């Protein structure tokens, strides 16, 4: 593309720096016992890609089953297990740790000019906990699965099903500690490890977004932990806390569960929004419009996020007044989300925009997230919620936000920082193709589900009335295209590890501190500790900087 801003170093002379975090130490142990945040980020990236494809395969099975109205590919029980495990794996082992675990671990310290996270051993421990939780969940899946839905709703989970509820619960409990550790680590690092001159309002917005998500992780996850412990106790000892025959209240479980699990959706989406802020600014060569507003809207989402949990329970017998209050609070969340979307749009305005792959994904994010967010308001209004809840409308809504929003942001981030992580460029043309394929496949998969939901097709059933078939066929076809869209990046990114063009320090001419060092970075990130003497996203500073630049001696 002629308009591209990629200015690769002269390929005849360019080479990957000999000393970097990948080559400093060798051998499998140097990875498994590493305390380097960059290596841990890579470990996360590899392991969560693994879980993503397991979850994706389960999603493929779901769509295959729904190709025909009858429950013919698998029995209804099996279908229940498949969608439950799809939910559990995708949410707890992909979406929650995706951006913080891989990109946050890798780039958050570099962005604030630190050598590492504040607590490197804890960081490694969080990866081991994540793996332990993930493998336990897989083990639960192989030895019989679990069919409660990812929400473990009582009394179904405590009294009626006889599947691996406790094992899966334990897996989530362990993975919860992993995300608590990550959250703690980020908060401490952001408070204590900023480089000289890196004031709060000079931090990149990615850091702000991760900060807000970390607060949610630290405050929300323990409540999920206690809810799971109580379910386990109820199952093993019959303690009666959620058992109406003993005076307990099954709804109480949902209050505790959603007190975590609603903020959890912001844990998933906020870091993604951070990625989008970086990408949009870099590829429109402009400072993010309304930096302070975007930064505070992250925090506002985190705060509001704690006061909307009961909107998952409008039809479950909470009082009308509670419905009213939670409905209003829910709509309030739309405000900071809209602030972000509008500010990104204004950043684009009169920017010099180029269409590299990360930017394509970011555009995808903006469109799909807006649709996902708007339909969220439909669901927040209690009247329409009564019609739409537990239908495919909900399924489409959260897939638009989580897959259309978060996964797009994750892929944008992976492509954006790939040159920094590996020192090599991904192939531009085919990755642009992948971005477009993903976008088309996504819309074809999930847009029909909005219509299905409005027509009244309930979620979580293996069979459905024949008149819904045509839309379901569209959806399944879309899922196939989407699958190709996700497979492509894996193939060409792995290919680029060996054959990609050498990227150089700053292929995007971005302003973040992480771009002002070699790629791949040194183990200690910076040859000399950086000093932040300019505002975030200051492209003029970068221009002046280039004049002073000398060739790297390493």
């Amino acid at each position: 593309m002629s308009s591209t801003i990629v200015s690769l170093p002269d390929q005849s002379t360019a080479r990957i720096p000999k000393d970097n975090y990948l080559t400093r130490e060798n051998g499998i142990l140097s990875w498994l016992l590493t305390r380097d945040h960059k290596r841990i980020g890579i470990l996360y990236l590899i392991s969560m890609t693994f879980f993503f494809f397991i979850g994706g395969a389960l999603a493929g099975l779901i769509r295959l089953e729904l190709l025909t109205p009858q429950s013919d590919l698998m029995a209804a029980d099996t279908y229940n297990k498949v969608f439950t495990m799809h939910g559990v794996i995708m949410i707890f082992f992909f979406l929650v740790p995706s951006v913080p675990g891989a990109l946050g671990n890798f780039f958050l310290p570099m962005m604030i000019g630190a050598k590492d996270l504040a607590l490197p051993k804890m960081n490694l421990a969080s990866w081991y906990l994540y793996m332990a939780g993930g493998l336990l969940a897989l083990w639960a899946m192989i030895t019989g699965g679990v069919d409660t839905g990812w929400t473990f709703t009582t009394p179904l989970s405590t009294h009626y099903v006889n599947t691996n509820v406790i094992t899966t619960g334990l897996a989530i409990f362990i993975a919860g500690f992993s995300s608590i550790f990550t959250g703690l680590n980020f908060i401490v690092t952001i408070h204590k490890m900023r480089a000289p001159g890196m004031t709060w309002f000079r931090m990149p917005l990615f850091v702000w977004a991760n900060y807000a998500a970390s607060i949610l992780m630290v405050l929300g996850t323990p409540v999920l932990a206690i809810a799971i412990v109580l379910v386990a106790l109820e199952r093993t000892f019959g303690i009666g806390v959620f058992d109406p025959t003993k005076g307990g209240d099954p709804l109480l479980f949902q209050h505790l569960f959603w007190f975590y699990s609603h903020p959890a959706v912001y844990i998933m989406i906020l870091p993604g929004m951070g990625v989008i802020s970086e990408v949009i600014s870099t590829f429109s060569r402009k400072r993010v419009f309304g930096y302070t507003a975007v930064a505070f809207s992250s925090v506002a989402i985190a705060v509001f996020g704690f006061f909307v949990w009961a909107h998952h329970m409008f039809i479950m017998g909470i009082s009308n007044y509670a419905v009213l209050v939670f409905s209003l609070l829910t709509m309030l969340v739309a405000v900071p989300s809209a602030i972000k979307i509008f500010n990104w749009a204004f950043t684009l305005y009169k920017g010099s925009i180029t269409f590299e792959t990360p930017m394509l994904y970011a555009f995808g994010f903006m469109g799909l997230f807006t649709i996902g967010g708007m339909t969220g308001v439909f669901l927040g209004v209690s009247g329409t919620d009564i019609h739409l809840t537990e239908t495919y409308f909900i399924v489409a809504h959260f897939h638009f936000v989580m897959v259309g929003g978060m996964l797009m942001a994750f892929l944008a981030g992976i492509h954006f920082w790939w040159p920094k992580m590996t020192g090599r460029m991904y192939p531009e043309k085919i990755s642009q193709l992948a971005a477009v394929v993903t976008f088309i496949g996504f819309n074809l998969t999930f847009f029909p589900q909005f219509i299905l939901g409005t027509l009244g097709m309930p979620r979580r059933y293996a069979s459905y009335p024949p008149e819904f078939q045509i839309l379901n066929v569209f959806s399944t076809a879309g899922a196939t295209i989407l699958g190709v869209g996700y497979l492509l990046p894996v193939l060409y990114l792995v290919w680029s590890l060996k054959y990609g063009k050498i990227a150089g320090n700053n292929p995007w001419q971005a302003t973040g501190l992480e771009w002002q060092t070699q790629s791949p970075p040194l183990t200690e990130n910076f040859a000399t500790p950086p000093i932040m003497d300019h505002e975030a996203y200051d492209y003029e500073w970068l221009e002046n900087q280039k004049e002073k630049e000398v060739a790297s001696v390493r």
Partner: protein
Amino acid sequence: MWLFLLTEVMFFGGLFTVYMIYRNWYYPAFVAGSHQLSIPMGGLNSVLLITSSFTMALAVWFAEARKKSALVLCLILTFVLGVVFLGIKGLEYKEKFEKHHFPGTHYSLQSFINPASDPVAVAAGDKALPQDTAQRTELFFSLYFAMTGMHAMHMIVGMGILAFMIFRARAGAYTAGHTQFVEYFGYYWHFVDIVWIFLFPLLYLINRH
């Protein structure tokens, strides 16, 4: 460390919320249930735990003052007080098991439907509860075991770390200027103490105002 304690607060906060709601709904059953708990034992345990917090605070101070033997002594005292606490807790649990007050299939309502059969209930002047109210006492004991069990689990973890610290302190690890570990453990221990200070009145002392 403060952030970690914050996560602990949220964890126990969930339990306390559950307790508060049910206590509000089933007040008479919770009162009758709480009469079954022994205040002397609970009170003694409170004293023990507060004392152990004091010895822990002393330990931090001695670590800062670089007094090795005093530090080791204080840590051992803290450990011993913890053991005694858990021992007393064990005795209380044993009594509950014997009276079939452990929730589950063997749960017995005898003490509440027919208080005359149970000297403890007689001493508290309990009146017979109707069947459905009496059944709610199971919920009280569920929460009693869940909350004190969770608390005991935290103590056991804490004592594991204490044992490790005693071992290290004898080698002189914390008396050479690096007192942070002792200090942070102190925070943790005080936190566990505070949880008990909330648990004691909630479980043992309701209806005794």
